[in-house]
């Protein structure tokens, strides 16, 4: 392991500072007159980083099941992302405090009695804590068994990988219904779950790429990935950019064509009203159009710097995407993005980097 860079050497101090500032902003925001503004960026970051963290284990499980020959070392990089999951559970518990300001159906919007059977705080939080908790346990057990099988041989945890993937699809569907769909209490879309877990996985891929490209110069052995590995993950990312877009498009087209009031409201806000439509086009550009065009070319997939930049584009695009999924439902008239938002987001980033750093120090990539 190399630590020749000032930034890398002092990474824990830097991220601790970020986290500290974020905590201050969270407390100030939560006790202000407009707590929704703070909780909204909190939720966005929670979903984004939890999704990325979970995607690490999912990526590893998929490679395990498909016997992919190329991903052995990439699996180890991906797995380091799950280190954020316990922290994410803690962050979920903190959200109980602000639940009243996050979910409009708690006090602001009245919902039918039947719907209240599903949308009520005790049930919502117990199912998300159980679901995400189960996923966290499964991820850790899977990664442990897989690493053991790698080091000492013996049985591969293939069955566990299947269980992990199925649980992932199910839990993330429920999470998307609870934390995104229910923010517009009258709106519904059957594709939401599939769209959400695909988006999370796609974002996770982008972080694996960023780690693989930029970690190589600082934390990992320099030769740990060959050009062919980059080509393969480039192809995978390319495929997922199309798949993710096709799901988004399926949702858009059906709602746009049907033009049924309770569905269209959601779409109209995001595609035809400012400032949201500008943000929507931003994430389409960053997370789909640019990566698509760059990765179409073989050189785009194999040149490390280029694919690394693509990773950043997707990550930023995914952040905007998550922002557009959540924010318009909570504050339809104004897109808040000021100093508090930036520092809270940086705090989440710091938290993620910190946990990953601890993990990688304990289990360096071989």
């Amino acid at each position, binding site marked *: 392991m190399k630590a020749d860079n000032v930034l890398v050497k002092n990474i824990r101090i830097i991220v601790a500072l970020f986290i500290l500032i974020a905590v201050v902003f969270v407390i100030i925001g939560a006790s202000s007159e407009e707590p929704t503004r703070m909780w909204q960026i909190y939720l966005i970051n929670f979903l984004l980083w939890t999704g990325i963290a979970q995607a690490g284990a999912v990526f590893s499980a998929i490679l395990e099941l498909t016997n992919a020959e190329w991903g052995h070392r990439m699996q180890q990089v991906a797995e380091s992302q799950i280190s954020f999951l316990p922290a994410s559970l803690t962050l979920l518990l903190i959200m109980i405090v602000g639940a009243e300001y996050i979910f409009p159906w708690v006090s602001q919007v009245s919902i039918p009695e*039947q719907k209240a059977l599903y949308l009520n705080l005790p049930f919502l939080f117990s199912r998300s804590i159980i679901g995400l908790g189960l996923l966290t346990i499964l991820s850790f057990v899977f990664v442990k068994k897989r690493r053991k099988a790698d080091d000492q041989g013996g049985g591969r945890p293939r069955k566990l990988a299947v269980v992990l993937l199925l649980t992932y699809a199910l839990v993330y569907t429920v999470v998307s219904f609870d934390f995104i769909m229910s923010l517009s209490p009258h709106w519904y879309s059957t*594709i939401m779950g599939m769209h959400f877990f695909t988006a999370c996985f796609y974002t996770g891929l982008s972080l694996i790429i960023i780690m693989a490209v930029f970690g190589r110069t600082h934390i990992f052995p320099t030769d740990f990935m060959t050009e062919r590995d980059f080509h393969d993950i480039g192809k995978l990312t390319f495929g997922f950019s199309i798949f993710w877009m096709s799901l988004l498009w399926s949702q858009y087209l*059906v709602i746009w064509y049907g033009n049924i009031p309770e569905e269209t409201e959601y779409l109209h806000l995001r595609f035809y009203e400012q400032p949201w439509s500008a943000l929507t086009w931003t994430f389409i550009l960053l997370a789909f159009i640019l990566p698509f065009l760059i990765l179409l070319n073989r050189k785009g997939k194999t040149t490390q710097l280029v694919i690394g930049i693509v990773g950043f584009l997707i990550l930023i695009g995914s952040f905007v995407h998550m922002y557009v999924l959540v924010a318009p439902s909570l504050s339809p008239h104004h897109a808040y993005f000021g100093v508090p938002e930036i520092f809270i987001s940086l705090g989440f980033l710091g938290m993620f980097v910190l946990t990953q750093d601890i993990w990688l120090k304990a289990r360096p990539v071989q």
Partner: protein
Amino acid sequence: MSKENYFAPDLIVDQVNAQVLEPLKKPSKLFYVMIALFISFILFGAYCLYTQIFEGLGVAGMNNPIAWGIYLTNFVFWVGIAHSGTLISAILFLFRSRWRTSVNRIAEAMTVFAVTMAGLFPLIHLGRIWFAYWLLPYPNARHLWVNFRSPLNWDVFAVVTYMTVSTLFFIVGMMPDMAVLRDRFKGIRSKIYGVFAMGWRGTHRQWHHYETAYLLFAALATPLVISVHSIVSWDFAMSSLPGWHSTIFAPYFVSGAIFSGCAMVITILYPLRKFFHLEDLITEKHFTRISQMMLLTSLIVTYSYLTEFFIAWYGHNIFEQESFYNRAFGYYGIYFFMMFVFNSILPLGIFFKKIRTNIKVLFVISILVNVGMWLERFVIIITSLSRDYDPYAWGIYKPTYIEWGIFLGSVGGFLLLFFSFAKFAPVVAISEVKGQIHHDKTGGDHE
């Protein structure tokens, strides 16, 4: 990591030609019996179609609320069957799955023949089949063009493109193998094979361009296959009919299509392998792999069923709720439960190693899945139409023997095309199998 061998372990390159060409030589009596059976299906179907053309659409059971009957069910069913062919030949090629070799040709043939059958049904459904050219985009006497905003028109483009591209892919993929046949036969058969081989010699330059072209075909076919069934699903989802208007329809239909297609591959592969003695080339491992694809797509389909029901309940839209209640417990409820058992519960058995390595059991499951997937389309189309928004316009639909006859005819047509293909063309991609065996034996790296 050691590479898994999917062929019989003692198979060598020299035997591939003989193995694949075996079926082309001496057909057994059973073969002619089968052919006669299929032709009788077609004749009955033709009689039914004749009746419908001369008597009018009234001979079919379609009525006012239920204007889309089993003709459209069959259309979606056959398009769905087609999809696994492109999946196995194109998508698995891009993913460098080694097991696709030696089953991809059969799957591609299935694609072409299934799309052919699918393409017939919208025309039959139109009633006045001689006006089928109205589907083409040209201005009519009043200078009106076709409506490009209509999903049905998208379907025309999608199906035509799919038919063309899968046929091209199929023919190009067969070119080197047709050269093998051209060189092994004499006289008129050699000439005919020669036409399809187009003078293929197998030079290093030809192989170089061929491999690039094949990769490009695969890269084009992959998004195509997803778009085609998405568009088929949008024939339904674009309307505002409860039970049809659902955002998940595109991925739901695509995975359902691959699911049914994989089932059909197993259904066809099992007798074909016995019939033509292809046990060395198509092994149990191929069946296991296809069944695993079936399991994956079955899970996605189940996920979609459950999501749809949950959202119908959650959405609190009275029409949606009623529509889904009717789907499960209404007049056609029995079909819904059959569909659920065949598509969602039975395939779960594939989780068990004993079942997924037992070809006979897989064969039985695959047939039931075919039935289940046909029922799925029936349930979606007919139950949603039978209970519209307005109770005054509710109705019941029962297919008549004419409709069943035409369906039977299409089954006969599909199987006849397939068996004739298996009789006259290489059912296994000879050059790819040779390449794979060669690389394994010489230790060269694959890819």
